[in-house]
Structure formats: C-alpha cells, structure tokens
C-alpha cells in the first residue's frame, strides 16, 4: 500500500484526495515518517506532525505535502539559507510564493538544505553539512537546491520548491533524475526569498514529472505588489497534454555543444538519443547560433556576485542572526561576525562582487558584464525567430563525487555552462531526466521565450512520455 501511495505523483495524489479516495493525513504521515528517517541530510527543518488546521480536501493541492528550500521565509520556522550567520533565524513573515501555495492547499512538510545563500552547484557549501545524492550516496545532488532535489528523488516529499539563479533548480534536477523548471524572470514573486542575485533569482518547482511542475507552477505565478519586478503571467498555466512534437523547431546551440565545452561523452550520447526521440515525435532539430553564450559564465560571475555583495551586507550582526563581538568596537564586530558567519564560497563571491563594483573597475567589469548580458538576451531573441525552443544538456556531466570539485571553484562554476545563458536572458527553461549514464541521471534542457511556459511544459511532457524515464523513489535509492 505504502509503495503505491509513494509512487503517486503529487498531482495524482491531490486528485485522489479531492475524489475522496485518499486520506490526506495518511499521505502526510507517510512522507513525514520517510523524511524523519532521512539519511541524505536533505532537510534543515521538519514539521513534527500534521498541521493543526488539518487538510482542506477542496483545495487544488488538497493538503499534499511540500518541501521548501531553506531560503524561502516561513513565519516562525527556521530559515537559514544554508548559513551559520542565520543559524536559528525565524522570520516574522512568509514568502509570497509559499503563501500562495498554502492558499492553494499545500502543506509544509519541511525545509530543505541548500548551498549557503544559494551559492554552489553541489550542496557542499551548506553550513549544515552536504546533502547526498540518493542515486549514489558518495555523490553530490547538485546545487544549490540540492536538498529539494534529493528529497523529491528519494521520495521523502512529493515535490519541492527551489530557486534558480544560474542553474540552481535545473542542475540538481538533472543530477537527481527529476524535473526542474526555472520560470521566466518576474513570473513568480521574489518577496520573502533570501536574495542571492536579485536580477536573476527565480523560484520554481522540483518535481517527479512535468505535470507536477505545471501544477505547482500554476499556483506560484502572478504579480505581487510586494515585488516590483514581478509581472502578471499573461495566460492561465495549463496542464501539459501534448504527445507529439510535429513541426516543433528545436535549436541546438553550436557554442554550447562545441568540442571544448567540457560535456561528458555519456551526456552527449544521452542528448543525441533524446534528439532522436524528438525527431521521432515530429520535431525538426537543427543547429543554431548563440554567439555570446560562451561568455555567459564570465558575465554571470560578475553580475551575480556584485548583486550578492550588496544583498549580503545586511548580515552584519546588528539586528538578527549571528553576532561575534570582536574587540568591542563596531568595525571589529562586523568583521568578526562576517568572518565566522559566512563560508568560503560566500566570502569569495562577496569579494569578487565588491571588487567588480569598485570605483575605477565598475565599467570594466560590471558595465561590460551588463553589455554581454544584453547581447546574450538578443542572441536568444534572434534564435527564437527561427526556433521554438533551444535545447542543450542541462549540465556537462552527471553527479560527481563529494569533494571532487570543492577545491577548484572554476571547475565547479563550469557546471552552469549550459544553464547560465537562460538565467541572464530571464527566459524559462526546464530540465527533464533523459536517461542514465553509468547509472546516474542525465538531464535534458529546453528553453523558450519569456512567458512561453505553457508551450515549454507541453514539449517537455511529450518528450517525457517518449523517454519513459523511471525515476521512482525505489529506483532512485530512496529505500536504501
């Protein structure tokens, strides 16, 4: 019975609850027990029982449990963004996206671990220990939304919220064999998300399949008066139903798949197989050009740290979070607090960003990065005149071993080679599991123009059906 329950997608579970065929309390308890027994270190906080208010079967999400990345503010519940500097911090308010999901009937099961302030591609930058990949516990789950991805893959929660700044939803989805959607910038409110890079951060779903992503996303979108950069989604979000891709034009960017782009052989093979499946569904696959895409990573590692250096200035020990007194004067309190509270990657990016914005360097670094960003967005615009979607492997490789890249930041940054261009352009992109390479999941990424999520989800759904990937918790190692 519990295996059958566990194998229900979130959408199927919600439908069963609404139909009166499933007790939401039973479902919740199943997941709570599994999450409580978590040996992947996926959770930073777990609820201690069913919600006092009970479950409302009439709501669209019907009480189905939800995992939420640590950096979403949840009133009264620890929200630490993976950092010592916020250890034990409980915000007085709840993020808009989480509020919306509550209103739609989602029930918070737990908060999930992440790289500190979402800075990382392996979850090894989490101050509270790394998260393990359920497919192979010696390997990373990806990052920064690694806790959410691992928990969903292992069946510790039916679905979860993540955030994506340069690939932080898509890459862990790829490493964990699940679906991750990074929506159009502005389609979901950022209010209550502890900021990493404000012009790039975007909330999105991590789910077992494309339909679950569509369902969760449909209850996240919408303009929010609390976020001036949010926009009204131009149409209702539909559940995907497309089974073929006839006439759909897929562009394969040469620049991202060149021989020196660092993509593993296994990933390439998986990517080619998926393209063949797409052709079989009627898609037209041809090469396309994104001339500035190879510079995306460089631009990203200026823009994101620059914004982060300001966003993280508020963690100063004055009002909340960690305070280390230092020598008793203000300046030494600031430096002692930040020295003790931030991990090395966060410090590295604060220094990078501070430098890039410094007087005399601003134009050479930040100014240039903004110009590159504009060019990249223009590249996509041009490409979308000829193609419906751009497709790439999500990450250049599969999940790597813990510690394999932690001493080489540049190698770590290269994980985002194929995901960062879409982030800089603000366009939606989805990663779906395309198969296994040496027993580890490989992700396939589709990107579309701004607000094309409905079409994107439809195409991803059609491919998903054709791929037939089995990412069931049992297979992903959730029973181990």
């Amino acid at each position: 019975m519990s295996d059958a329950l566990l194998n229900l997608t979130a959408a199927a579970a919600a439908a069963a609850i609404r139909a009166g065929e499933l007790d939401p309390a039973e479902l919740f308890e199943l997941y709570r027990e599994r999450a409580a027994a978590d040996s992947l270190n996926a959770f930073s906080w777990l609820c201690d029982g069913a919600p006092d208010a009970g479950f409302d079967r009439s709501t669209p999400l019907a009480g189905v449990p939800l995992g939420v990345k640590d950096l979403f503010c949840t009133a009264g519940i620890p929200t630490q963004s993976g950092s010592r500097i916020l250890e034990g911090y409980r915000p007085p308010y709840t993020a808009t996206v989480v509020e919306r999901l509550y209103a739609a009937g989602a029930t918070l099961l737990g908060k999930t671990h992440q790289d500190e302030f979402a800075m990382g591609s392996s979850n090894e930058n989490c101050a509270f220990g790394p998260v393990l990949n359920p497919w192979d516990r010696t390997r990373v789950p990806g990052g920064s939304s690694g806790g959410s991805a691992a928990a969903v893959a292992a069946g510790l929660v039916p679905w979860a919220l993540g955030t994506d700044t340069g690939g932080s939803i898509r890459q862990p989805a790829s490493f964990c064999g699940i679906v991750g959607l990074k929506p159009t910038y502005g389609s979901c409110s950022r209010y209550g998300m502890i900021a990493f890079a404000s012009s790039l951060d975007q909330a999105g779903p991590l789910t077992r399949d494309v339909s679950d992503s569509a369902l969760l996303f449909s209850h996240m979108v919408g303009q929010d008066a609390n976020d001036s950069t949010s926009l009204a989604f131009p149409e209702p979000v539909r559940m995907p139903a497309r089974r073929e891709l006839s006439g759909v034009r897929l562009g394969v960017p040469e620049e991202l798949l060149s021989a020196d782009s660092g993509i593993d052989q296994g990933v390439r093979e998986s990517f080619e197989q998926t393209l063949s499946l797409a052709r079989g569904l009627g898609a037209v696959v041809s090469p396309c050009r994104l001339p500035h895409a190879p510079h995306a990573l460089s631009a990203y590692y200026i823009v994101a740290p620059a914004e982060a250096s300001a966003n993280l200035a508020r963690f100063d020990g004055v009002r909340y979070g960690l305070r280390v007194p230092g020598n008793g004067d203000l300046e030494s309190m600031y430096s002692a607090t930040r020295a003790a509270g931030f991990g090395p990657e966060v410090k590295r990016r604060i220094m990078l960003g501070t430098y890039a914005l410094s007087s005399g360097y601003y134009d050479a670094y930040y100014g240039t990065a903004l110009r590159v960003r504009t060019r990249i967005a223009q590249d996509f615009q041009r490409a979308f005149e000829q193609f419906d979607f751009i497709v790439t492997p999500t990450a250049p490789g599969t999940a790597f071993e813990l510690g394999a890249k932690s001493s080489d930041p540049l190698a770590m940054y290269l994980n985002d080679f194929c995901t960062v261009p879409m982030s800089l352009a603000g366009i939606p992109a989805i990663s779906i599991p395309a198969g296994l390479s040496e027993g580890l999941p490989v992700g396939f990424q589709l990107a579309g123009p701004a607000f094309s999520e409905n079409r994107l989800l439809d195409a991803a759904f059609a491919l998903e059906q054709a791929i037939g990937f089995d990412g069931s918790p049992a297979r992903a190692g959730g029973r181990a």
Partner: protein
Amino acid sequence: MSGAAVEYEPVIGLEIHVQLRTRTKMFCGCELSFGDEPNVHTCPRCLGLPGTLPVVNAQAVHYGIMIGLALGCEIAPRSQFHRKNYFYPDLPKGYQISQYDVPICGPGKLGEVRIHRVHLEEDAAKLVHVGESGRIHGADRSVVDFNRGGTPLAEIVTEPDLHSADEAREWLNLLRTTLRAIGVSDVNMEEGSLRCDANVSVRPLGSDQLGTKTELKNMNSFRFLAQGVKAEIERQTALLRAGEQVQQETLHFDPASGRLTPLRSKEQAHDYRYFPEPDLVPLVVTEAMLERARAELPELPADRAARLERDLGLSGERARELAFRPELGDFYEAALAAGGPQLDAVALANWIPPLVERIGSDADPAGSRVSPSALAALVALVSSRAVSQTAARDVLTLMVQSGDQPATIVEREGLGAIGGDDSGLAQVVAAAIAADPDAAEKVRDGNMKAVGPLVGYVMRETKGRADGGEITRLIREQLGL
C-alpha cells in the same frame, strides 16, 4: 611680492535633504512619525529583514515631481534607483536606495541659484548614543531607532552660485518657503525635516577656477548655517593668505562651540559602489503624473512676490515679506479684496508688520481676532484721515485684544482725528508756537527740521489723535509761511 592686495571670493553650493511629508515611508507602509516611542514604526522591509523588497511610495514620487516643477527642473521621463553601499548600524540593508546617474529632476533654477539636480532616496535610522556626552565618543553604548529609517527624502543639490554666508542663508529661506508653500515637507531644521550641507571654497576675486572645497555638515538651523559658512570662509581665506592650501575634507559643525572639526579621514574614504537597484524597475513619470503635479502647485512664493511688487506697487522687501510667509500673503490679499478698489494696497501692506508684532511673530493672522475686513476698515479710516497714524496703532492693539471693529473702538475710546476748522487744533498749534518761540523762529527762518518739537507738543496735547500733515500745515499757516 605676496598678494596682500588679493581679494578672495567665496563660492558656495548647498546640498539640502528634505523629509517628504508623506503618510508612509519611501519603500514600505510604515507611518512616518516624530518623537514616538523608538522602533514602533517598523516592519520587515524597513528593518532590512532577509527576503524583503522595496516598493516605491507613489506619493513621494508625486512630491518629487512637484519639487522639480517648483524649482523649474527638467523632470526625467525615466529615472533609476541605485544602491549606495556602506556599512553602518543606521542602515539596515547595508545600502541606501538612492538615485545616482539618472535622478528624477535635472537642471533648474530658484531665484538666482541654479539647481543641479533633485533626487529621491530613503533616510537612515537614528543612532542614539547612551551615555553622558550624548555623542558617539564616550558613549556607554549605542542603540538604533528605526522609526526614521526609510523616511522619504528629496536631496536638492545646487550649483556653486552663492557667494556669502548671508546669501546662502537667504536663499535657503527662499527654498524653505517654496517647499512649505507647495506642501511637500514640514521643512523644520530643528526637527531635521530640512537639513543643509554646504560645499565651500574660496578663490581670488575674478578667477573662474574653483578652489579646493570642503563639505560642512550638521548645521541644523539658519543661524548655524550662516555661522558655519562664515567661519569656514574666514578659515580658508586665512589659509590662502598665509600661502597654505585648503585640504579637501568634511567638517562637522559643533553648535555648542560654533567650531568646525574634521571628520576622521577613514570616515571619508568611502567607495559607495553604486549600481542599479535590481529590486526596482526604472521610475517612469507619465504625462498624467506631470499634469497632476502641475495642477497641485500653488502660486510659488517668488512668483507671488513678483506679482505683489509689479501689480500692487509694494516694495520688493515688503512683497517678499508677505509672499515668503504664505499665511501673511493670504491675509493681506483677503484684506485687500475686502477693502475694495479704493483701498491703498501699499498702505495696507504696511499694516501687516504691526499686526504681526501684536499677535506674535510666528502666529497666523487668520487665527487672530482681527478679520481681514476689519484691518481693511482701519486702513480706510487712516486714509480718509478720520484716524491718525499714531492713534490707529492704538486702535489696532485694541482690535487684537477685543476683536471689535475699528470704527467701534474709535467711537468708544474717542480716538478720532482732530482736524478741520472747528476742531480746536488751531488753538493747540498756537499754544505750541507760544510755548517754544525758539523753534518757531527757526522754522520761520526756513529751518523746517525745527518743526519737530512743535509737532511733538501738539501730539502730546492731542494724545496722538491729530494728523501730522494737518499740524504742519497749521504751523506754516500760523507762522505766515
């Protein structure tokens, strides 16, 4: 060979921070307050809690546009907020949201001073240093009151068009009057809703190069502004005369000692690392927003002064006196309307200062017991010589006390003018001549200055009810002149 004869010219520019009189803060819904319990007007946003985002206060933008229009500025159709980064406990986000290279208002002019720019930003919170001194040095500890944090500010920056401490003070008064008239701020320097920094340099007279400037802070009254600027001009001039150089630095004005002390150089070595605020979209000012701001602008004090001078013949000084305190201008114009076309506008204007003197210099005459029509009636009585100038002052005093009509008071107190053939004034004049033959002789010899004692005698005898002109006429008549 040193230039003992070189004259130096001060060059002064001002940077004025104005707290806007909105209901709520610049980027959140907390109410503005002054003097409330600490930290009661706060929310996650203005405390800079993680995950919060700013939302621009539309009323503050409206006020920013009104300021720009009142100062003749170009209004930017699209301006940008930036982050100004520095660490301080009064700055909860670690950056101030301000405007940088594209402010809401571009070049303009008020009076003779060009406006460089006006931009919108948020105020910092207030640090309170607990301890005997009340200052940071020697404080036991420092605490932060976030009530003020996030208050909307407009920063107005002038070009260096002022050339003396008095000019600076006078112009700041014109600015304050203008801002008060358009209703965007309380403009109270003591409470900090108007704050003024000055950039001061001196240069040899006739030079078109600017000297090294210093920035003067913390001059929180008009008097302190003039005092600080004057002291700094003297200091710089003395340095240059001694062949030394002015160091570019920021100076803190100490109201207690009247002295300027340099801030530590470390505090000046800021690199603010400005960059566009990614949490806000560009600020777009539409034609409709401009229309609304234009419609709400009253006649500006400088325009009103010009009109009073041009159309009514008031002296420039009197016109400014009335226009720069709108409540006086309003009372004056109401009295003028009540008095009808016969009323002497200049004479009426000259009766405003005596009225102000009697009701208290800061009081609004509209709140006094004297109505505009009663003041107009008094001026009419004087003009028709029914009451002398001197007696009318006593009548005004009684009007302020009782609220009675001037005619009633004149009747009741017997203050009507003495004059005409059957009034007995001629007899009093004759008595004056008889009492002071020396003066009479001098007047007869053509020394009209000697008429004073004679007039004084008559005034004493008539308790001021006689008309000065009539007395002089009678003296001349009786002395056969």
